[in-house]
């Protein structure tokens, strides 16, 4: 009797569980919810509230009338951007730079990680790793200062060397063709040491038994790298690559802006979406066009992330973001 009673109770509990009211659920999770509250408020205020503002892209925004008072112009801002060829140029630059950053960056990082792995001396490894991390720690502003130090016409290190060698100094800050190389170099300089750590960790995670077996079998170093290390890095490589592809519409604003800034002689080869958006807003006070470019970037970027996440999911669901 007693036994069946508890059974009865147990049953009703099971039936009752899904019927928990929202209020009850909220109450049960009260503390955890409160712990998340600051973050929730933060993202609402700084990320969700500005969202309706994308409407600016469809207006002829002026400060007096505000977001929803300014005249509606439909797709005119986009039309202008497309017709002037600006949108195409910005997209092209942003995507091409990112492609080079992603491919060259990952290749250099893998190569560096493999070489680091060959080094046995502990202190050497530690010292070089510490130094390789340094560039990651400095601001884009300082990178701007460094490039100024090296490349400026009057006092730059490069022109100093050219003068001493008896050559004519060159005006690097007006040679658009050179800047892709400079920008790519700066990006590699700042990111390679940092990025290689992830690959280095994957190499360290390789089962040493496999490596030893290969050595006993007389595998050469090249074979060891080719058949053991590289394949083991493949998953990391593919995942990082796909995520990077998802962000291919987003540029490294700080670097580009501090290297090029408002130097219009270089725009043809260096202007990316972020720098254009910033300049339209800050120098030209053109919020409408700026918003239009931003919205275009957001939508395009969103689609790309979705595609790359779908691809990651197909390769290894464990790594998918959602």
């Amino acid at each position, binding site marked *: 009797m007693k036994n069946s009673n508890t059974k009865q109770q147990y049953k009703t509990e099971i039936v009752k569980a899904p019927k928990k009211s929202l209020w009850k659920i909220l109450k049960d*999770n009260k503390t*955890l*919810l*409160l*712990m998340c509250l600051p*973050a929730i408020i*933060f*993202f609402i205020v*700084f*990320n969700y*509230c*500005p*969202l*309706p503002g*994308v409407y600016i892209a469809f207006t002829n925004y002026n400060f007096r009338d505000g*977001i929803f008072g300014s005249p509606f112009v439909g797709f005119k801002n986009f039309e202008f951007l497309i017709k002037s060829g600006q949108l195409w140029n910005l997209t092209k630059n942003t995507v091409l730079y990112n492609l080079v950053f992603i491919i060259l960056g990952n290749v250099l990082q893998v*190569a*560096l990680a493999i070489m*680091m792995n*060959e*080094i046995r001396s502990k202190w*050497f490894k530690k*010292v070089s790793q*510490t*130094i390789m*991390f*340094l560039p990651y*720690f*400095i*601001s*884009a*502003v*300082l990178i*701007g200062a*460094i490039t100024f*130090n*090296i490349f400026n016409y*009057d*006092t730059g*290190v490069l*022109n100093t060397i050219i003068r001493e060698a008896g050559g004519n100094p060159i005006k690097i800050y007006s040679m658009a063709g050179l800047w892709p190389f400079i920008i790519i170099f700066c990006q590699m*300089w700042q990111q390679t040491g*940092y990025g290689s*750590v*992830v690959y280095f960790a994957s190499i360290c995670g390789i089962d040493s038994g496999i*490596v030893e077996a290969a*050595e006993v079998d007389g595998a050469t*170093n090249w074979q060891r790298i080719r058949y053991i290390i590289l394949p083991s890095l493949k998953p*990391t490589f593919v995942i990082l690559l796909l995520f990077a592809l998802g962000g291919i519409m987003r540029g490294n604003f700080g670097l580009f802006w501090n290297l090029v800034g408002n130097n219009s002689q270089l725009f043809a080869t260096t202007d990316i979406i972020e720098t254009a*958006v*910033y300049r*339209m*807003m800050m120098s030209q006070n053109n*919020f409408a066009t*700026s*918003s239009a470019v*931003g919205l275009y970037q*957001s939508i395009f970027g*969103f689609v790309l992330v979705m595609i790359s996440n779908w691809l990651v999911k197909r390769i290894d669901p464990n*790594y998918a973001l959602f």
Partner: protein
Amino acid sequence: MGKKRTKIKLGGSSVALKLISYVVVILFTIICILPFILIVSASFSTEVIINKEGFGLLPKGPTLSAYSWVFRYPKMILGSYAVTITMTVCGTILGLFLIAMTGYALQRKDFRFRNLLSFFIYFTTLFSAGMAPTFIWVSRYLNLRGSYLAVFLQLLMSPWLIILMKNFAKSVPYEITESGKMDGAGDFRIFISLIFPMLKPALATVGLFLALGYWNEWYQSSLYLGSSVTYKPLQYYLYNIINTANALRGSVAGANVTFTDLPSNTLKMATAVVATGPIIFLYPFVQKYFISGITIGAVKG
């Protein structure tokens, strides 16, 4: 790490590979450090010689003159230091606490809203309003233009850091939370006294990212502070010195100097050294945690 290697005789190709590795790593290390040497050397050079000969690898006519200019009217640079240090310390501590709290809650298996809230936070990385609408919202509707709060608040949290923290917190065994529950501790209490101390490597990693974010901040300042504050955050101060002649003159305001007197080239470099120094010295202290931290967080975050 901790990989044992059987000693095998070094064949020809093995030595070659090792040699190449050492050479390349040394070269890369030099490339990494060279620009720093250039900047430091330039800051210790004599302006007149620099104007005639240009910057070099070693200081030309070693002098402290540029530094004495930086600190001649120290109000500006020290004010900038005060602003940046205050923001960095407060922002890192507050941000770290909020991020750890959120990250811990979001991975609790018994938290009903964890997936919903995780997506709510993650979505902000997928789709954003963009620079202009955000700027109008923050400056016009939140009325934060010209306020340090505009910079301070926006750098406080980021979805990536929360995800990173969440992944770390996942690696703390759930039994610890359960044992806390057994003892009758509330969720917040469990977090503070049991979990928080166990998140040390994560706190070091995320803390360093936050500190770097605050210390290297110039972009939000350029949007929201502009010229409306006297004391600019350090990197924005440097940004202005490098990019505008007026700011250079302003940095020694009160000195009653004509522009030609100013050692402008070396002064820029000295300001760069002064503005960057402290954050670089912070790194060796957290390096141990940081490397393991980014390794864990890198792929999924």
